[in-house]
């Protein structure tokens, strides 16, 4: 750090000029371009009886585009994912608004509690939803017992409703965290200025809060949308036949048919269609201006209700806050209940109380190993992704790289690639680069989709920060390290935390890509995945109950030890 040139007007620009653009290009090359060249390249090859024939052809594309099934499934996949992201946004955004602006003491707890349900394996949550939505399920029992239905309906499960509901369920935390980090940065003074100008709640939201937070929402929405597009397992398990998504067809080309070129072409078409939607989302969310004041949005108070209308609003607000939590924790309650159920099989009615599954857990070394591996992978992945994500976000924020937008989207591509395709591309790339199967392969594979998420959330924050803070710090004699530690990091801390949380969540529950990377040592989701096909044991319920309970308890303990957020003093 000693021989750095004097800080230029670009703040970190000078430092970043030396180290970083190269790393951005390297990352793109190794983890985006190379796998994608393989993917795109393969899509122009022929396949004969499951074997690649190295002859260029456009046949895969003409077949893909001409196929009514592919057309229908692209439309269905995209519309379903969009609907799920939309539902998630409608639930998560108001919640994020409330938590970020009106909660004080339990703010962090409220945020963490939204994310914890996603640490429970996808498959477990799907099973839980089946138990809730099934003909003999919880929802039907409730509706019949309250007299809302005269007899159980089979319309809930194996329907589009179930697909959108479960996908939205998984999307909520992503939309929430991303929106939260954006909303938190809308200064309270701007909201007051708007009220002062005569704007009511709605106008203040529409004209001030929304323009300043919609980009954050868009990132969360895009993430939720991408994950929903990529998840073909959930729709097929709760949606019945009509839950078939394009990912399923693509996976069958890579698996059963062994027709990689066709599968690759279908993937490329899907990625193109998804990119269009994403482009549209970000175009709609484009905004201008830089936030100059950085006072966090704490301390606002809901006005004490005066009129009937106030009471109504307050009541609605309470419902809007509590309901999402109920929604998020319902499947976990189901999992917990079944971890004490005496039956091998997960259906109602319950058959009796047992602790056998917990006892069995202690003896199940494979399960415990898998859990440990999952934690190592997730923590290392997140730690590395945060470091790389911060550096990359700073490169994009403070350096005028050519084609910056394009590069950013490029880095994010792996998030949009169907799991099986990404898994195969990474395996082949890893082999080309000489990375052995095992934990490092998994970590690097996970980083391809975790890092972009972390980066995007931090970048969104950086782009809204006044660069003069950094310049001021450098000007005051702080070196780059000090400036980062004392000035920049405190301002992006919540974004880093949010990104890390989402990254952890993504890593901890990943199945399809990991399947191709783990080699002989499965992670917990893989273990559960394989169990589901053959010989599922309710011990899995037990371990996830423990994980869920431990997470919640740890969060609460941490909060009590660290102490709740201090209220800001007012003069």
């Amino acid at each position: 750090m000693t021989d750095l040139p004097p800080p230029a007007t670009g703040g970190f620009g000078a430092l970043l000029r030396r180290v970083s653009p190269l790393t951005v290009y390297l990352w793109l090359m190794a983890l985006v371009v190379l796998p994608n060249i393989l993917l795109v390249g393969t899509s122009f090859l022929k396949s004969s009886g499951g074997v690649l024939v190295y002859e260029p052809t456009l046949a895969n594309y003409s077949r893909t585009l001409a196929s009514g099934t592919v057309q229908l499934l692209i439309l269905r996949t995209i519309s379903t994912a969009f609907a799920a992201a939309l539902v998630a946004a409608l639930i998560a955004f108001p919640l994020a608004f409330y938590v970020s602006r009106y909660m004080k003491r339990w703010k962090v707890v409220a945020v963490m509690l939204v994310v914890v349900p996603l640490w429970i394996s996808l498959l477990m949550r799907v099973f839980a939803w089946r138990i809730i939505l099934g003909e003999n399920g919880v929802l039907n029992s409730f509706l019949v017992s309250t007299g809302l239905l005269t007899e159980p309906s089979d319309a809930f499960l194996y329907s589009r409703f179930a697909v959108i509901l479960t996908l939205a369920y998984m999307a909520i935390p992503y939309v929430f965290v991303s929106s939260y980090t954006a909303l938190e940065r809308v200064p309270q003074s701007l909201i007051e200025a708007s009220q002062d100008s005569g704007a009511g709640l709605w106008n203040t939201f529409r004209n001030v809060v929304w323009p300043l937070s919609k980009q954050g929402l868009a990132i969360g929405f895009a993430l939720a949308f991408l994950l929903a597009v990529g998840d073909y397992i959930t729709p097929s398990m709760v949606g019945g036949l009509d839950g078939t998504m394009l990912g399923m067809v693509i996976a069958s080309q890579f698996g059963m048919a062994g027709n990689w070129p066709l599968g690759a072409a279908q993937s490329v078409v899907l990625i193109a269609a998804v990119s269009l939607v994403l482009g549209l989302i970000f175009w709609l969310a484009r905004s201008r201006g830089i936030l100059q004041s950085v006072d966090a949005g704490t301390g606002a108070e809901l006005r004490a209700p005066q009129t009937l209308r106030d009471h109504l609003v307050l009541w609605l607000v309470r419902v809007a806050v509590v309901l999402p939590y109920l929604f998020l924790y319902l499947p976990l309650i189901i999992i917990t209940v079944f971890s004490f159920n005496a039956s091998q099989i997960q259906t109602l009615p319950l058959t009796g109380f047992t602790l056998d599954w917990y006892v069995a857990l202690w003896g199940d070394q494979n399960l415990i190993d898998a859990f440990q591996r999952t934690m190592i992978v997730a923590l290392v992945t997140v730690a590395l992704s945060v470091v790389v994500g911060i550096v990359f976000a700073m490169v994009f924020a403070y350096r005028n790289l050519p084609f910056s937008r394009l590069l950013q989207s490029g880095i994010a591509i792996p998030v949009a690639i169907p799991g099986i395709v990404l898994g195969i591309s990474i395996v082949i790339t890893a082999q080309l680069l000489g990375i052995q199967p095992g934990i490092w392969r998994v970590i690097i594979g996970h980083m391809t989709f975790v890092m972009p998420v972390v980066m995007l959330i931090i970048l969104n924050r950086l782009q809204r920060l006044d660069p003069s803070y950094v310049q001021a710090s450098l000007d005051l004699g702080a070196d780059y390290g000090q400036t980062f530690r004392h000035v920049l990091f405190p301002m992006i801390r919540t974004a880093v935390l949010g990104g890390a949380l989402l990254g952890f969540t993504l890593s901890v529950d990943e199945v399809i890509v990991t399947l191709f990377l783990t080699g002989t040592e499965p992670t917990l989701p893989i273990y559960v995945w394989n169990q589901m096909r053959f010989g599922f044991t309710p011990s899995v319920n037990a371990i996830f109950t423990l994980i869920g309970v431990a997470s919640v308890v740890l969060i609460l303990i941490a909060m009590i030890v660290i102490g709740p957020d201090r209220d800001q003093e007012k003069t």
Partner: protein
Amino acid sequence: MLNKSNGPLLRLDQVSKAYGSYQALQPTSISVDEGEFFSLLGPSGCGKTTTLRIIAGFEVPSGGTVHLGGHDITRTPPNHRDTNTVFQSYALFPHMTAAENVAYPLKMRKVPASEIPARVTEAIGQVEMSKFAERLPHEMSGGQRQRIALARAIVGRPRVLLLDEPLGALDLKLREQMQHVLVHLQRKIGITFVYVTHDQGEALSMSDRIAVMSGGRLQQLATPRDLYYQPANSFVASFIGKSNVISGTVETNAGRTVLRSGALSIQMPDRAAKPKAALRYEAIAIGPESEGRDVVFDANVDDALFLGNSVEITLDLGGSRLVAMAPSQRDGQVRPGDPVRAGFNFRDLVPLDD
């Protein structure tokens, strides 16, 4: 619309505010007249901003009432109050241009769209920012943002304009310039100003009346002149301008009342003297100027600070100290150690209540 005859435009009656156990504002009553330039002055934490936020409607008082134009607005939300605020941080909407920021209150108050451009242009013109109408906030300097914030607050022609340390972030020169702009503007548009500041100079130069606050309490409410010459207590005396606070004992002996403070012993003209009094620096005359003053005494110069147009001289009276302010002179400057004669008049000795 104007109802001067019905008493004050804005009236705070026993308004108080507590945050939990912390009493930010003790019960306070203040009245502001129509067209008045009214200032709330005090150090940070004195309760002035809380008072302003209660008037603006951002805080609901824990007790007391707020009336505007005879109507109780204590619990009226900010968007339904006929007040506008210039925020300390300016609080310009970063995603809107200057013109859009200024148009915002008009749109929110449902001013017909056809009227808006003209009024925006007018308001921006009044703060001399016409050239910058299409800039985004981050493309403007601090002073420019300040003017736009002002334009946004006056464009809706509120009955009361609230200004929360609006000049705090500006440099000295800009600050003085803006003081003139504000006073000029206030006279021109005739809006009542309630101005929060910790800068006594600012308050004295611009205000019609000033409420001095400290520790959540109103210390004194008076015109700048009265505050200056008749401070009610030692806090006001030391906060407004520069005063010596003489604190001692009053002795009545054989019909004579004497205030003793250290080496100083003053024969007071009346019997009702208080043991504490304020004496402005400039009320103490030095050298030949002290001839004929009611009280004359000898002292040594302890220190002399040259301030340009004046010299601040610390006098040592054999243990106790007094500070005098004398006009500076090209020749004959005083130096530390010089013996001098000094004096002041009884009427400059302001008895303090505390």
